[in-house]
């Protein structure tokens, strides 16, 4: 027979002894209180209600699970560490080290616990969380700002062109006031790209907050300006084409 069998038996024999006593005491208690005959359920219910001082301490069983309450028993945490030196065959031995003892409801350290990394440092229970802040990134930011710059330059150029040629027939027919309003609206909307390119990779929290709050102002104002100009222009066209007489009429911008 394997020697390990006796090793196991030495450790559990006191518990086996207490278990046997618990079963016997429960049977005696039933017999003395009621009848000489009882079933397994009755016996079990009596066992979980039996308490006595055994060889392994106070025997108190959990009535719900039937197992022994942890606080009534001693527990030990055995840590297996590498033994110094090598065995005769050049291989390594791993030996037990009694690290913690649970008694009177609390754990007491006996020797420092050595974890798999060779230290006593308690590792986190889960991998470290890597936070992806989803930054815009330099490349995307530069690309966005370049396109923003192109639109701004075009707005300024077309605005200057419109002002410069405001008295020419073509521009006059296109109503320069609406053209300028449209360009101004697009200019403001385009400006909103600049604060949108800010994130906390390049700016402080306060800077990001200012940038964030400026976006709706720029975007909404620009949108309102440009679409007000477009809508007004459509309104004028509608008024001209739906005129009953189709006579020449003069319209004013306020």
């Amino acid at each position: 027979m394997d020697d390990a069998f006796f090793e196991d038996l030495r450790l559990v024999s006191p518990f086996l002894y207490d278990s046997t006593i618990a079963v016997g005491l429960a049977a005696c208690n039933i017999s003395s209180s009621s009848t000489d005959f009882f079933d397994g359920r009755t016996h079990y219910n009596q066992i979980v209600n039996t308490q006595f001082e055994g060889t392994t301490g106070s025997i108190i069983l959990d009535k719900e699970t039937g197992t022994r309450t942890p606080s009534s028993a001693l527990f030990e945490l055995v840590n297996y560490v590498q033994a110094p030196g090598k065995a005769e065959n050049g291989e390594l031995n791993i030996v037990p080290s009694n690290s913690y003892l649970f008694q009177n409801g609390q754990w007491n350290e006996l020797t420092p616990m050595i974890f798999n990394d060779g230290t006593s440092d308690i590792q986190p229970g889960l991998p470290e969380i890597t936070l992806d802040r989803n930054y815009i990134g330099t490349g995307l930011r530069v690309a966005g700002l370049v396109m923003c710059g192109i639109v701004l330059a075009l707005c300024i150029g077309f605005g200057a062109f419109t002002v410069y040629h405001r008295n020419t027939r073509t521009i006059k027919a296109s109503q320069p006031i609406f053209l300028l309003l449209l360009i101004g609206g697009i200019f403001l909307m385009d400006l909103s790209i600049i604060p949108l390119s800010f994130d906390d990779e390049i700016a402080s929290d306060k800077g990001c907050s200012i940038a964030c709050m400026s976006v709706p102002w720029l975007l909404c104002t620009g949108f309102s300006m440009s679409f007000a100009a477009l809508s007004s222009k459509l309104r004028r066209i509608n008024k001209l084409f739906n005129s009953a007489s189709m006579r020449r009429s003069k319209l004013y911008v306020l």
Partner: protein
Amino acid sequence: MQKAAGEYASDMSLRVIDIPFDSTAEDFEQAVSFVKSTQYRYIFAVVEGAKDFNPLMIEAYNQGIAGTGKHNWFYSDSLSPNAVPGQTYEPNSPLQKATIGVSMLRAMPGLPGHRHTMHY
């Protein structure tokens, strides 16, 4: 175990995976794969006797959840006390790397305050 965790460590979260009694290499592979998917680094194993220890730890090493220095394995006292110290380990072998630092939680005979009389 769930009840004890609720009573003594209410913030602890437990996931349980079963290994069949007559376990095969495939059972170990599936069980370890499940444990790996949880990403937990503290693993409490209840195995029968000593026969399951070596294949379980080798499979855990192969799947990268033992012997990493980050994963810590604990066994109940259903593991034979002779399972770990009762053998020698080839240096730098998967089993040796995975077994270093393993712990076993076991019930001890004796009474509080009489620890030195309890060791056999």
